[in-house]
């Protein structure tokens, strides 16, 4: 092993220490926090972490006051934790001291935040454990001078008899007053503050009439800013957006249920839920109580006055308003499900921790049909699979147990036949009235599930025609799977195998279709170019014809043979243009583009040869072996012409380097009335083996091996020719493939069809 510093000898002297410049606090604040709203959010998070129920943030003049009813700090805690940079008094298990909230504040950043936000700070804090004493502290950051030791920075503090009151008149908590603010606070900044903190806030506090008991989820932040317009609504904006992002809203109500008052429910769907569906609202009214299927003898309604609203969220995909879907999920995970409010007081028992509507139970059992909905509301599909679980719901059921009791007593109802709070006041007695309330609310959820499925089914029907075969088959598989328990095992396995097999085939065909669709753009351009070119050709031909006639006339008048020769050359040029023009002629006639009969092969081939031969000089076409009565399947002249043109131009390219330039076209009928047309050329053969030749039909797959010096005389070369050939052939129920070359030829392509 090599000694890293063999020559250095350490001499014993007095050890030295790192010293820390006082300005580090400022530097750290700027680097770690960056923005004032983040700094303030960190301070507020400290309140949440201190198990506060309420945190009040007051903006007034040049100060911000953050006050909470958390557990506060003892003098010891203040010195040990708050005054020590880089540490935290927060517990190692990441949970708050009393309510076991997940801790949110960043390590020790709160202290830096105060310096970042303001020049002065005043703290008042009373620890919950010792509510007689109050610690007060004062800091003036202006006295921190760069170059002095951090440890020399003085924070003035004292203890006094507890006198401060915190939010909700709490006797413990912490109040931090920041003075001489470094930034200006306005509504947009407060809105951004809200964006950082919304996930900590309890939704129940927004609707409940009381604050409710201290709990892990019961935390809210009040913003008081008389000098900033709309401060609270700016702060609430993200939470408001979240609650406006519902996809469906279920509302229910009954008044005078005990007097046979009609209960009504409505389900309102926003557009796009499910995807592609329009906004829609469904109503249903009935008399309570809700009967379970098969139930006959039941007592009259034991609930008198109930109103509820349940929001259904789509906690997947992009959320409107820029709220992160993960945050929505976490938020609903914590605050979701349907709660019950007794005279505005939320009964803590009914929340995410308690599946009081039995939704999770029924989902686990894969319940497919509601036990509560009458048959006329049911839809054929397994609609209950669309029942939303608590993590997608946020709802509240408003009751008033005191009034229920009065109404019950008027009707001389027995004990247990009205909604009644249990002694612990966190839940209702599990009696008949509660059962009826539960069924009423659950009925509305089941109703929602049927309407959702109805909308989804309608969309499927609307989309069915546009759907690809594979999509239909995937859906068929889903239906099959969903009904697996109703189908004999053997049948299920066989049908599944068959559908999967069909799916594979469809996917393959669709893939091929997609590849062919890629051809359309270049073909469309080519089509437009062809029409334009045809127009130009016609004009040029007319001009040439007149010039030729004039030249001939001059040549005759002047007896000038050179002029006559020039006229003959121009006449030849005109003929070549005419021949090229004929390439497009099938595109110009509507009838030639319309497939209505089985055209005779021989004239079609002959016509194509006539139109293309000017581009393929010196090629010997032999179509003597095409029977006169052989007919293509139903198709248009334009299609067959395009198919043959492409095959011929491929043959031309293949023959560029060959000694012989022959194309033979033959036709006939094979076994099982299979008719065929083969085109053979004497070119250099395929670039791949016959077995691999299938791939040549893929778009942009080039089959020719044209030498660079011959590129200018090659035809095509875009790699689209054979794809077009196959596209046309398939469209006309024909097959096209390369086969073993006919005798004397190097390549043979065959088109075959059922005669």
């Amino acid at each position, binding site marked *: 092993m090599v000694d890293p510093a063999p020559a250095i000898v350490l001499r014993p002297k007095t050890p030295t220490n790192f010293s820390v410049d006082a300005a580090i606090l400022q530097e750290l604040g700027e680097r770690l926090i960056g923005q004032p709203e983040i700094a303030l959010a960190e301070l507020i998070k400290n309140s949440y972490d201190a198990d506060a129920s309420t945190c009040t943030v007051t903006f007034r003049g040049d100060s911000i006051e953050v006050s909470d009813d958390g557990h506060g700090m003892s003098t010891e805690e203040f010195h040990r934790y708050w005054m020590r940079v880089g540490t935290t008094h927060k517990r190692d298990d990441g949970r708050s001291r009393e309510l076991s909230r997940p801790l949110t504040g960043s390590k020790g950043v709160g202290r830096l935040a105060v310096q970042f936000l303001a020049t002065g700070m005043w703290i008042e804090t009373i620890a919950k454990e010792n509510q007689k004493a109050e610690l007060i502290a004062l800091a003036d950051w202006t006295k921190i001078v760069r170059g002095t030791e951090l440890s020399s920075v003085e924070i003035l503090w004292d203890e006094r008899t507890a006198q401060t009151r915190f939010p909700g008149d709490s006797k413990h908590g912490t109040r931090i007053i920041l003075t001489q603010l470094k930034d200006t606070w306005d509504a947009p900044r407060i809105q951004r503050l809200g964006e950082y903190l919304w996930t900590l806030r309890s939704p129940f506090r927004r609707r409940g009439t009381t604050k409710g008991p201290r709990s892990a989820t019961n935390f809210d932040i009040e913003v008081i800013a008389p000098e900033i317009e709309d401060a609270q609504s700016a702060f609430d904006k993200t939470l408001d957006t979240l609650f406006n992002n519902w996809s469906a809203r279920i509302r229910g109500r009954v008044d005078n249920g005990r007097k046979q008052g009609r209960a009504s429910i409505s389900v309102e769907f926003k557009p796009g839920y499910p995807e592609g569906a329009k906004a829609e609202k469904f109503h249903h009214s009935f008399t309570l109580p809700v009967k379970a299927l098969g139930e006959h003898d039941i007592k009259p309604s034991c609930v008198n006055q109930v109103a509820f609203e349940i929001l259904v969220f789509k906690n997947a995909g992009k959320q409107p308003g820029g709220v992160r879907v993960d945050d929505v999920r976490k938020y609903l995970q914590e605050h979701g499900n349907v709660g019950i409010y007794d005279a505005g007081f939320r009964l803590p028992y009914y929340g995410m921790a308690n599946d009081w509507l039995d939704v999770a139970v029924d989902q686990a059992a894969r319940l497919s049909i509601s036990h509560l909905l009458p048959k006329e509301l049911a839809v054929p599909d397994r609609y209950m699979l669309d029942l939303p679980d608590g993590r997608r719901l946020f709802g509240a059921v408003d009751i008033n147990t005191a009034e229920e009791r009065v109404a019950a007593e008027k009707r001389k109802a027995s004990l247990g036949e009205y909604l009644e709070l249990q002694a612990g006041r966190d839940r209702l007695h599990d009696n008949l009235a509660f059962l009826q309330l539960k069924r009423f609310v659950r009925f509305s959820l089941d109703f929602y599930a049927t309407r959702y499925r109805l909308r989804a089914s309608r969309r499927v029907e609307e989309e069915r025609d546009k759907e690809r075969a594979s999509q239909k088959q995937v859906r068929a598989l889903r239906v099959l799977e969903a009904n697996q328990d109703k189908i004999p095992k053997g049948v299920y396995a066989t049908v599944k195998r068959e559908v999967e097999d069909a799916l594979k085939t469809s996917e393959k065909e669709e893939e091929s279709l997609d590849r062919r669709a890629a051809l359309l753009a270049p073909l469309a351009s080519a089509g437009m170019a062809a029409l334009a070119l*045809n127009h130009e050709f*016609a004009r040029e031909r*007319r001009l040439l*014809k007149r010039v030729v006639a004039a030249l001939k006339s001059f040549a005759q008048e002047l007896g000038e043979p050179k002029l006559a020769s020039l006229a003959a050359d121009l006449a030849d040029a*005109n*003929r070549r243009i*005419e021949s090229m023009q*004929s390439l497009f*002629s*099938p595109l*110009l*006639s*509507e*009838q*030639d583009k319309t497939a209505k*009969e089985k*055209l*005779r*092969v*021989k*004239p*079609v081939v002959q*016509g194509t040869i006539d139109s293309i031969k000017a581009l393929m000089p010196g090629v010997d076409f032999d179509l003597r072996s095409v029977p006169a009565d052989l007919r293509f399947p139903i198709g*248009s*002249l334009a299609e067959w012409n395009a198919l043959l043109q492409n095959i011929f131009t491929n043959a031309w390219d293949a023959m560029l380097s060959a000694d012989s330039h022959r194309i033979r076209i033959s036709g006939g009928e094979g076994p099982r009335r299979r008719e065929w047309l083969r085109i053979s050329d004497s070119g250099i053969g395929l670039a791949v083996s016959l077995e691999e030749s299938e791939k040549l039909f893929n778009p942009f797959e080039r089959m020719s091996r044209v030498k660079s010096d011959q590129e200018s005389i090659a035809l095509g070369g875009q790699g689209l020719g054979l794809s077009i050939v196959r596209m046309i052939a398939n469209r006309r129920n024909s097959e096209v493939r390369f086969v073993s070359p006919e005798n004397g030829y190097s390549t043979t392509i065959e088109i075959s069809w059922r005669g």
Partner: protein
Amino acid sequence: MRILLCDDESVQLERATTQIREGFNSAAVAVPEIVQLTGEPLKNAIETLFKNVTKSLNGDSVEKIIFDDHDMIIVDNNLSHVEITGARLTAEALAGYLRGFSSTPYVVSLNKNPDTDFDLRFLIGDYQSRADLAINTEHLSNGALWTGASAHADNAFCPSYWPRLRTAATRRKDQVAFVRENLDRPVLVSLKFPEFAIERLSRHAQGFLVGADSSAQTNDGTELDASLREVTFRQVFEKSGRSLPIKKDRAGLSAENANKPHADEIIARVVAGEVDSWMRRDVIGAQEVLVDIPHLLARLPILLGNQAAHLDRWNAVLESPDPLSLLNAKLVNEQLIPNGFQLGSKWWTSPTFWWPPLEQNEELRRLMAAPELQIGDFVFCEDTSRFIVRVPEATLPAPQEFVTELEGGWSRRYAAVLQGRRYTPRSRFAA
């Protein structure tokens, strides 16, 4: 002959004028007087025409216009430079009104189908045209267009359906006079169609006569026939929207209280044009009821007697001003003349004969079956109006068979398929 040539572009107008002159020169016949109409005068003339249309429909007297008193009006289809409010003007939009509301009998439209030289469908050219003939400017220089003689053809191109434009005006005037005389008489009776001919009329041919007459269409065959036989020229006018597309206009002109002589003249002009097109396409064109000389020869070469093996003789008949004189005199006198369509000369350029009795004629059948008969294997080419060898020696181009869309058993025809000519739709060659 006096031709009014209309085009909104003067360059094109000059070109067409030159082409017409070339056409007449190539046929070695006197060049007609060509009156050119373009620019503001064309615009004014069209406006006056439509004012006259309105006046005529209101029963008012009309003033003479520039479109009157020619033998033929030739109009370029693209009149988009004529600044008249409303839809872009075309020859097609004018043709029907020119036919009815000008005294010029014949209307030709130019360049409606610039990519077509020969239409293979109904052997009448563009059957949808409202004009009497729809051709292209370059066809004007073809002498055969004017004379019908293949000898005057530009590089052999002489469609059999071209109606010899030089005499078309005279023929049309005769037709108009005939229709005016028989306006309220049944068409088929006036034309002296025998019963066997009426029975052989194709559905298309019947449809033209019964037209929109719903009672005739909904009845069974017998009643349809009865109605068919009774349809008058005036009723044809009322039903056919080819020239005057607005039914109310037609009804007004045909009404009892119309300005009779003037209205009837308009009706006669329109109906003459309609019946002419019907005869050319549905009656003669199909060669099922009436057959003309070339198609008769192709079916009964025995008419050529001992000359039936000689191609020259076949073509000589077609070129002769008196074709019957070159045929077997006995057969002509005994078989053809008794079955001739007496009024044929008013409606077609060559003699025509009733085919059903000739087809059934035992004597002709017997002669055709005679073993000693020498007949050349020749076919009539509709694009050159000449017979050629069906299977020529290898070096010569062979005629191509095509299938028209005409009804009946004679829809398969031949074309020489000349280089440089555009035949549409080409799928008819492979049908």
